[in-house]
């Protein structure tokens, strides 16, 4: 109520606003209305912005999608790569290095990695811009704009990716190490197949299956990390939107972002489960 009308209204004004937004209906009927609207894709009106919630969220959704998507790709590719490096010589210094590094990345809170990266790479070394998604002076060509965007995207995406890299790397490494001991790999080696081919073609492919599931399951955490990264780097996405919604008590936006985040996580989970089923013939047969 306060969010809508401000602190200084009088009783009449509050009553008027309540009536306008249907806030004095019993809770059950409010919920019923909400659900019905949800089905038609209507998430209600923002208290603060005064506009359609879907509209407000839609404006920022792309930014977050870009950030999260890039981080997802980076962390998957990077994680698999690191895992393979570690598994190629288990117990060797490369393995220890990878394991140690990923453990550190897992234990460090995302905001810390973000702030330190900002400090070192942006403020001290000046390699990356400090804030936001685009520069104040917008480049003229589409190519220039694209590069500018990438330049701004690089550091936040890498920071977000570092949060996820650890689990993917660890899983890949364990999977590959296990596969390397399996009979069919031994056969390949005995046949004289070169080491690297064995590693990549035979072991990795089978080891990748659980990685797929993990990637899907971690989308929830990815989005959570994205929220923090958006605050640290001033990235204009739905994470930031959600936060200001909390501060402003803007419930419709808050619920809207939550639903979208939860929905995305659930869908991602489902998708990867289905994909896993397709990829692993053992499962689809049962």
């Amino acid at each position, binding site marked *: 109520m306060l969010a809508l009308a401000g602190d200084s209204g009088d009783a009449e004004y509050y009553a008027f606003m309540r009536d306008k937004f249907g806030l004095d209906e019993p809770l059950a009927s409010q919920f019923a209305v909400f659900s019905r609207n949800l089905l038609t894709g209507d998430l209600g009106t923002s208290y603060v912005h005064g506009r359609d919630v879907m509209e407000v969220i839609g404006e920022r959704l792309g930014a977050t999608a870009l950030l999260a998507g890039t981080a997802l790709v980076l962390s998957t590719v990077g994680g698999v790569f690191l895992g393979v490096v570690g598994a190629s010589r288990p117990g060797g210094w490369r393995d220890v290095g990878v394991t140690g590094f990923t*453990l550190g990345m897992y234990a460090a*809170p995302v905001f810390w990695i973000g702030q330190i990266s900002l400090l070192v790479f942006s403020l001290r070394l000046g390699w990356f811009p400090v804030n936001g998604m685009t520069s104040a002076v917008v480049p003229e060509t589409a190519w220039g704009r694209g590069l500018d965007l990438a330049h701004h995207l690089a550091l936040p995406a890498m920071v977000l990716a570092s949060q996820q890299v650890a689990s993917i790397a660890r899983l890949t490494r364990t999977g590959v190490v296990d596969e390397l001991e399996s009979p069919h790999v031994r056969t390949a080696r005995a046949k004289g197949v070169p080491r690297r081919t064995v590693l990549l073609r035979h072991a990795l492919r089978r080891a990748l299956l659980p990685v797929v599931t993990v990637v899907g399951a971690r989308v929830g955490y990815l989005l959570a990390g994205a929220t923090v990264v958006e605050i640290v780097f001033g990235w204009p996405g739905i994470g930031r939107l959600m936060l200001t919604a909390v501060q402003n008590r803007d419930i419709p936006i808050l619920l809207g972002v939550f639903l979208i985040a939860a929905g995305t996580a659930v869908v991602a989970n489902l998708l990867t489960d289905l994909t896993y089923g397709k990829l692993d013939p053992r499962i689809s047969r049962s």
Partner: protein
Amino acid sequence: MTLTVLVVVSAIVGPVVAPYGPFELAGPPLSPPTGSHLMGTDALGRDLLSGVIHGTRTSLAIGGGVGVLVALIGTAVGAVSGYLGGRVDDVLMRLTEIVQAMPQFFLAIVAIALFEPGVDTLVVVLGLTSWVIFARVVRAEVISLRHREFVEAARAQGASRRRVLFSEILPNVAGVSVVYLALVVAHVILLEASLGFLGLGDPNVASLGQLARQAQEFLRTAWWMALFPGLAIMVVVLGLNLFGDAWNEAESRRT
């Protein structure tokens, strides 16, 4: 292992050792680490070392609180599910799947927005969403122990099912569960810190996330404000993880 001991000890000893209170103004604002202020001071002139020590205590307290909740709920669900099997198992597992599907972080944000931000809200929300993996582990352990000889022996002696569960199975489950509990607590501490960073923690208690949040404004001028709180969290989480690994190895050597 030693790392965790160190952390826990310092947390308990903390308020005695820390030179200043958590919100006490103690020195010139924004001064870099020096002899009298080992980690520097923040924007209001509060000693950062004390802030970090108090914040760590908070994190550990919250982690501990959630850990207890998780242990209770997780053991209850896991043990019952694993021991009884059948329909009960199915229903409980569906329940865990539903809880697991929800994004913990966002749920916590919504909960904090609806109820007042505070330590109790945090503990309840995080506790109610983190027990799933622990429950699965307990269940798996109970299932593997269910048909062992000593259980059958106890039943043959006429012990009721509940007795068997409590005196025979659970003590043996405890060993492996501790590992996962440590991991869950570590995870919760990370979550609590991130929530604190977003400003959603309890404003009345010192918290490491809060310190990091304050650091955001002063990145250019006071790098130490950003460095130390996060570092402290990293140490705690690493310690818990390593503890879990060490315990795991000790356990597998035993059996």
